[in-house]
């Protein structure tokens, strides 16, 4: 467990305290703050076990390298609009099809964290709208 101190605006804290008292009862502020932290981490996909976290940290390093190279890759007709694979900070593969690229680079370098993304000005977006009714 970590004990930490944060600075919060007086008025914001007063209103937060009031809401927690009204909704959860006395001495529950800590619990609510921990839940907010947990939700924040979960929403960003990091509420995972230790091994996954290690993979994620490695893939984030490769992503960082990709983002540094992205403008240069966009200007290069060999890469622009295609999928690239980044491993140990370098582009190690390129293909129009991400499935083919994944197969090729994993066969060559092993099933290890290799970042695969499309060379485009913006990050990839996908829609998963599917709302579901919670079970009663």
């Amino acid at each position, binding site marked *: 467990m970590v004990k930490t101190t944060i600075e919060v605006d007086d008025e914001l804290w007063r209103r937060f305290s009031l809401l927690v008292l009204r909704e959860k009862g006395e001495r529950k502020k800590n619990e609510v703050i921990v839940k907010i932290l947990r939700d924040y981490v*979960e*929403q*960003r*996909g990091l*509420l*995972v*076990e230790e*091994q*996954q976290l290690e*993979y*994620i940290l490695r*893939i984030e390093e490769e*992503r960082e390298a990709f983002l540094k190279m992205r403008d240069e890759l966009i200007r290069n007709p060999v890469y622009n609009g295609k999928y690239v694979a980044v491993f140990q900070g370098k582009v190690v593969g390129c293909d129009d099809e*991400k*499935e*083919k690229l*994944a*197969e090729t680079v*994993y*066969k060559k370098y092993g*099933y*290890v*964290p*290799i*970042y*695969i*993304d499309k060379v485009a000005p913006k*990050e*990839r*977006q*996908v*829609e*998963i*709208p*599917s*709302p*579901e*009714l919670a*079970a009663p």
Partner: protein
Amino acid sequence: MNYSSEYSPPAPSLKVKFTRPFSDRSLELQAKLDTGADMTVIPQHAVSELRLIPASRVSVILFDEQRVWRYTYFVNLSFNGFAYKMVEVIGAQRRDALLGRDVLNRLKIVLDGKTLSFSLFDP
């Protein structure tokens, strides 16, 4: 195939086998056919159990236009005699899988809500 009554209202869903690339390690999960989903989604516990390695991350737009980002993984999947290699899927905190249009668009699907049944073809 019949719709699953585990959903209310019943929904077309089936068992899908997800396999770790270059391995025999696999897991069978209930997957709902979801024509609204751009990509296939698997539960986070499956990511851990199959020891999948993240390959990318995408910005996901939810039904209320909220955006979150999620890691993606390449996985082999098979169901009802159909098999697809190296499908990029999203990991998310949910109990079942969603079979998105990235997979569904490779098939002909007939949904019969009247009889709560559906069929899959690859003509």
